């Protein structure tokens, strides 16, 4: 074996990818060749230098990905494991992550820890006899302590903000319920938005509901909420306002699953005015599946794919 052919086999030898015959021949050559042995050493040094570059995905990134995926698939029911997590679990996880050496992500993790702490504190106060709800038994009071001051008489003065939780039950046709749902569609918690948009889409008759769905499709940060809202717009694809939003979303949304569904909705109602939008999308689309879908839609409309 020449040094030239040995050098071609060294990387494969290192990775254990040679067949036994080749391996034997190379080893024999290495035994007699200082230069090729040195080359194998360099291969090992390279590999160990590269080993140090490997990164592990942090657990909470994985959990976030899982929650996003399940929200997208189910149209948004909160992830089972997530909802089962109590404040202590959240808090301990956050503390655990903070000490995991993830400097870059320490800030948001710290924020979670603070929220968890606040929530834990709130639960303690909520269970204490002081701020008792005087209304219906379904009310629950949460408090956040703002200030603690001992006074001269050996007592303590505590200042806290109080948030009252109230539960209302009613039919979907009830105006009060609908108003709350419309407000919930703009809540900070994505799980609440998903659930309320999901319920609103079944009531898609009124203009207010339509506007809430349009707003969610165009502006909601959570992909599960956007997909749910799109479902709600399914029977309104003839509405010019809805079509305008869909056209905008097709070009602007960063999630391919959303864009796929938008194409479905756009082609559900034949409208030649959409040809330009679809042609524009073909030019800009970087996801193969979405592009193929748009191209197919244009073909079905007997329109050319490019604007030329």
């Amino acid at each position, binding site marked *: 074996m020449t040094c030239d052919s040995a050098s071609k086999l060294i990387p494969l030898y290192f990775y254990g990818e040679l067949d036994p015959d080749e391996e034997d021949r190379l080893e024999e050559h290495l035994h007699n060749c200082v230069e090729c042995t040195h080359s194998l050493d360099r291969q090992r040094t390279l590999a160990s*230098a590269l080993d140090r570059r490997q990164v592990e995905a942090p657990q909470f990134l994985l959990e976030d990905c899982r929650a*996003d995926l399940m929200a997208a698939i189910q149209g948004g029911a909160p992830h089972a494991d997530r909802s089962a997590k109590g404040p202590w679990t959240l808090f301990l996880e956050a503390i655990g992550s903070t000490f995991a050496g993830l400097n*870059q992500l320490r800030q948001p993790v710290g924020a979670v820890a603070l929220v968890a702490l606040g929530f834990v504190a709130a639960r303690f106060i909520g269970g204490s006899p002081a701020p008792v709800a005087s209304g219906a038994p379904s009310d629950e009071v949460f408090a956040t302590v703002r200030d603690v001051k001992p006074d001269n008489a050996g007592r303590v003065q505590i200042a806290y903000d109080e948030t009252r939780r109230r539960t209302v039950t009613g039919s979907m046709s009830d105006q009060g319920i609908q108003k709350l749902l419309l407000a919930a569609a703009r809540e900070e918690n994505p799980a609440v938005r998903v659930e309320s948009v999901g319920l609103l889409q079944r009531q898609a008759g009124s203009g207010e509901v339509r506007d809430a769905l349009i707003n969610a499709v165009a502006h909601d940060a959570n992909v599960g909420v956007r997909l749910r809202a799109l479902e709600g717009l399914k029977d309104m694809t003839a509405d010019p306002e809805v079509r305008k939003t869909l056209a905008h979303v097709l070009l602007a949304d960063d999630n*391919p699953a959303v864009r796929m569904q938008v194409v479905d909705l756009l082609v559900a109602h034949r409208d030649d005015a959409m040809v330009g939008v679809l042609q524009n999308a073909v030019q800009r689309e970087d996801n193969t599946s979405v592009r193929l879908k748009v191209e197919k839609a244009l073909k079905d409309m007997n329109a050319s794919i490019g604007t030329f």
Partner: protein
Amino acid sequence: MAQDAAGAVGARLNPQVDSLIRAAQRGDQDAFEQLVRAYDQSVLRIAMNLLRSPEDARDVYQEAFLRVYRNLNAFRFDCSFHTWLYRIVTNICLDQLRKRKVRKEESSVVETSDGAIDRMDTFEEEAAESDPERSLWNRQLKQKIEGALLDLTPRERMVFELRHYQGLRLRNIGEMLGTTEEAAKNCLFRATQKMRSVLGDFV
């Protein structure tokens, strides 16, 4: 390192996974979730290592498993689920790498007044280096490595990632990338040669 079902690389028959797939094909959401959990750690790891960006890795994760979800009924058990899934993941990652090459984006490496730094450094567990000379050498080596990896074609980068970091056999890699074992071998050879020539005195 955490192991998941993807650790059983190349195993065409995995009765537990097969029954999860069949249940998920019948519309069982729990089975689908279990299937995801069996493989998603390694999917995210590949994406993080290749793209060096948690945001991009997240997108790859989402798109890959949504594709799996939509196309699971088309899976006919003529290759292992692992191979099928990785084919999807590698396609998405290759698309991303190609796009970056076209846009000449430099993944996570950013220029600062202190020189080039890798945003992902904070993800790596590194022992504090007390020797400043050694630390400088390490930093320079790191920069060189980033440069060397950027020099690879997306396909070479992918083969190298799957062989070196994920420990997959070249035969499986060829199957995933829709090419032969021989072509995967050539890719790996080219990748290591390029890196060795860029790294020069460092290795």
